[in-house]
């Protein structure tokens, strides 16, 4: 059976990185009608370019049309859906019944599946959406293993589950705190994440109730045994490094599971990698029941910036063993760094020298996005990533 690793992409560049770093499919939003109004998002031309790029690599592109529509938003919906259909996207991700109605009425060839915004938690709900023509459902992040198992064992509709990234405190879609506190419509893409604010509750402590992130790396093997079809990473607003790192980690874990070579050491290593790239704490949330006190933050935002991404390989000369690297965070002569890529297994090396764009030997690469040359004693490829040593 095919297990799909599904990555988010906030723009064309991240779509390409998600694809080359191991995604089987990516989900994106257009300028209109998706739930991440603050992401860069895609024009129709960019969607077309993204679809062509992905299809050449035998990957799929799903487009979110999953906001909750008000009457006024319906005006250009038909033409937008038709344009996406003509672009040959692989699926619509929908939430509002008005979008399902339009897809069916227009007899579009592109299939659709149901967004997590509908908070599907049981088999009966899956049956309902199947009856509407959905070939897949994204389950609520509050589903337990038993919920998922019951669905998987009793229906042939594809199931997609979130395995990594941020979570709402609420059931998805069932929150309008953003509307009331900040006058921004959460269900039309304007969520201001009020659940991450702090409140006064008349105790000696500020009141906060945001969720920690989701991380299912310990349970991927078990989930694959349940024969779940699609494994989704959250984060259309995440960085290119985050996308590449998370894609690479889960791709490796899933492939090793399929090949029966997955070890506890693999899990431990990639858990470390994922913990470093995330800027928030993460746990498996509801998979084994209610996470209780461990599933939340209570002291407001607790995020740290990540400086692991050292550089991006632009080219590599196999004769001189010299790589041209675009710097992202400071690194220095003598540092031990790791490199990984779509076709480059994680390897370490020591920075022996750094040559800047003026052809000068320097001690450090400390200017953002400066182009430098470094010696890498093994073959690397364009778009490989240099990061700090994790293992």
């Amino acid at each position, binding site marked *: 059976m095919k297990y799909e690793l599904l990555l988010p992409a906030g723009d064309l560049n991240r779509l390409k990185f998600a694809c080359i770093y191991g995604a089987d499919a990516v989900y994106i939003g257009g300028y209109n009608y998706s739930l991440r109004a603050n992401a860069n998002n895609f024009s129709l031309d960019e969607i077309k370019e993204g679809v062509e790029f992905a299809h050449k690599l035998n990957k799929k592109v799903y487009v979110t049309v999953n906001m909750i*529509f008000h009457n006024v938003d319906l005006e250009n919906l038909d033409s937008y859906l038709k344009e996406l259909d003509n672009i040959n996207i692989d699926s619509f991700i929908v939430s509002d019944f*008005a979008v399902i109605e339009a897809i069916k009425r227009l007899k579009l060839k592109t299939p659709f599946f149901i967004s997590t915004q*509908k908070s599907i938690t049981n088999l009966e709900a899956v049956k309902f959406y199947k009856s509407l023509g959905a070939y897949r459902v994204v389950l609520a992040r509050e589903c337990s293993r038993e919920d998922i198992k019951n669905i998987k064992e009793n229906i042939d509709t594809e199931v997609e589950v979130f395995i990594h990234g941020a979570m709402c405190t609420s059931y998805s879609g*069932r929150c309008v705190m953003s509307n*009331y506190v900040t006058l921004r*419509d959460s*269900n039309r893409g304007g969520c201001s994440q009020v659940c991450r604010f702090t*409140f006064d509750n008349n105790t000696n*402590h500020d009141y906060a*109730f945001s969720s920690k992130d989701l991380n299912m790396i310990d349970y991927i093997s078990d989930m694959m045994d349940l024969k779940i079809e699609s494994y989704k990473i959250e984060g259309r607003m995440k960085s290119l490094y985050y996308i590449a790192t998370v894609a690479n980690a889960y791709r490796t874990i899933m492939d090793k599971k399929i090949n029966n070579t997955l070890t506890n050491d693999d899990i431990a290593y990639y858990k470390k990698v994922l913990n470093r790239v995330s800027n928030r704490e993460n746990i498996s949330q509801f998979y084994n029941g209610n996470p209780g006190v461990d599933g939340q933050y209570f002291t407001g935002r607790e995020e740290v910036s990540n400086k692991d991404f050292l550089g991006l390989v632009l080219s590599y000369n196999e004769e001189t063993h010299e790589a041209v690297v675009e710097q992202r965070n400071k690194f220095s002569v003598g540092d031990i760094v790791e490199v990984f890529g779509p076709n480059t297994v994680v390897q370490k090396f020591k920075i022996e020298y750094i040559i800047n764009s003026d052809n000068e030997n320097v001690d450090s690469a400390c200017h953002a996005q400066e182009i430098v040359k470094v010696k890498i004693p093994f073959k690397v490829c364009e778009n490989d990533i240099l990061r700090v040593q994790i293992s």
Partner: protein
Amino acid sequence: MQEKKYLIIPNDKDFKLYESFNLNTFILPLKDYSIGYDVYFDIDEINNLSSNYEIYVIMNKFLHLNIYEFKKIYNKFNKNIKFIIEDIGLLNIIDKDRLVLYENHILSNYKAVNFLYDLDIKNVVINNDLMIDEIKDIKNNTKSNLYYFYTSKNILMYSRRHLVSNFNKYFNIDSDNNKYNIKEIVSKKTLEVKEENDGSIVRYNRIFCASKYLNELSNLNLIIDFTDINDISKKIILDSLNNENLCNLIDSDYYFLEHDIKYKVGDL
């Protein structure tokens, strides 16, 4: 003025009080299947009340595997009882003519309402965060039987998490209280967090009241949810049911009836 139909979600079990105001249609939160209310009812209570009143049962939880527990008890309800449901899986269990679909805050346009109508789901609760013109457009463009939270402390959020006891545990606060009033520090808006067995809900602390547009809302089934509303406001609401000025007699907020809401940074 045309006589309106009001459906009452009570905050106590004193039905004589409501009856004295000629109110005889009630929405009763079903014990174990609903969340965030002041009082809950079991099947026997509901069946008994259905012999004297028009009764709807509200189930606003997502049911997970518990949906099969409901399947076992569904036939025990008297046949004249209707069901207002949040979990869409219940569409496969409850007869369509006894069912009102209530997807809190997310049924916001007439095409979605009409799509459901064509599926024989002809009774729906529409979002009450809409502008009055949007509501009128929905009404004018559908044959569906629309329900609308007309006066209520709106539920703004529904979580499966224990948002009160988790906080207390984290800070070692010894308390049996299952509620917190929380004030957002910048906007000064106050919300009410209430925890129950299977999760928590957050309500806005001000009463949404659409009375200013009572006439325009004719032909809608108007729901009055007394949950968390104090006795003084409750008395005023009951005394002034058909008064368009009710919204000015209580601490109410009907901002969204009159203001469009922005959702893209570029629109702000």
